[in-house]
């Protein structure tokens, strides 16, 4: 993993410069066993200018992320899939969204840092609490609306900017470049590898708790 870390570090400055070119789309991985819901969430995300990958099960999601244990996920490295957000349905056959959430949060790698949002048609308080306790970023009641996606996107991008700016300030101390505009920082979760072990990105933020409260 140390060798991989070196590769990341050397490529990170390139990435930070590349991101000025404007490809600042959030990449969202959506997981839902319902075809109707997959179509809708895909459209909601695309119309909100997100790059979307939709899969039909938690297993497929883990496969996509390279976490299914069948492959060698340590080799994925820089060319691997960069996902900025995972949105998953709660009730799915096989592995539920809750179990997927737990699996991702158990990863001792960059994957644990990816925000996970649970979607459910059931407004069950114990379910909501469980998910938030396991580190879910938010819990959305279905049917999911454009305003939900918009709010989520803003929140994720704000979090990315904050961490991105911290990184770029560290790295560009002697650089002549002017301070980066909010959208010029990278949205790749790779930045977390260069952060000190105690990551500043906390899953539970005041806005999450207030959004949960506003739903009650």
């Amino acid at each position: 993993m140390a060798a991989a870390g070196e590769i990341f570090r050397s490529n990170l400055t390139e990435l930070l410069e590349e991101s000025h070119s404007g490809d600042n789309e959030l990449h969202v991985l959506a997981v839902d066993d319902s075809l109707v819901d997959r179509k809708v969430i895909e459209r909601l995300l695309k119309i909100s200018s997100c790059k979307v990958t939709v899969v039909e099960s938690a297993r497929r999601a883990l496969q996509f992320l390279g976490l299914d244990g069948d492959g060698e996920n340590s080799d994925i490295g820089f060319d691997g899939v960069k996902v900025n957000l995972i949105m998953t349905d709660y009730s799915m056959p096989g592995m539920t969204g809750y179990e997927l959430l737990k699996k991702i949060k158990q990863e001792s790698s960059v994957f644990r840092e990816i925000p996970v949002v649970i979607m459910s048609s059931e407004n069950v308080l114990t379910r909501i609490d469980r998910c938030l306790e396991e580190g879910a970023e938010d819990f959305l009641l279905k049917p999911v609306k454009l305003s939900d996606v918009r709010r989520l996107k803003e929140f994720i991008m704000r979090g990315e900017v904050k961490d991105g700016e911290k990184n770029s300030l560290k790295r560009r101390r002697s650089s002549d470049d002017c301070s980066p505009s909010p959208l010029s920082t990278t949205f790749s979760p790779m930045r977390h590898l260069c952060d000190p072990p105690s990551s500043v990105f906390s899953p539970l933020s005041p806005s999450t708790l207030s959004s949960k409260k506003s739903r009650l």
Partner: protein
Amino acid sequence: MNRLLSFLFHQGVLDEQFLQLQQLQDETSPNFVSEVVNIYFHESEKLLRNLRALLMERELMDYKKMGIDLNQLMGSSSSIGAKRVTNVCVAFRVATEQNNRVGCFRALEMLEHEYCYLKNKLHELFQIEQQRDLAAGVRYPVQN
């Protein structure tokens, strides 16, 4: 909003989620609503057939399996804004939780009725929109 659509809202057949779907339709995805709705029809008919088959079981009825199918139907119905269908699913689910065979039969009848009504009305709606688009095309022919 055309008259049929506002009628369907007024009757509670559709809710604002259907409007949300319409908002997702644009030049890049001009048939989005009908595509989603057709997927919904296809899936729902499968589920309704399952439910009827499960209810026809003479001996032990698999209420749990019914509940699973109902959850799916309920979820997709609410995703397209089919309010009345969703509500009947909720009542149906209660009957399965109570192992209420008669209640389940009644609920299925009502569900099939509501679903048919919805399907007919949505087909009508799409036809009206198609006619309107055709008419607009005649008046304002597309320049290549």
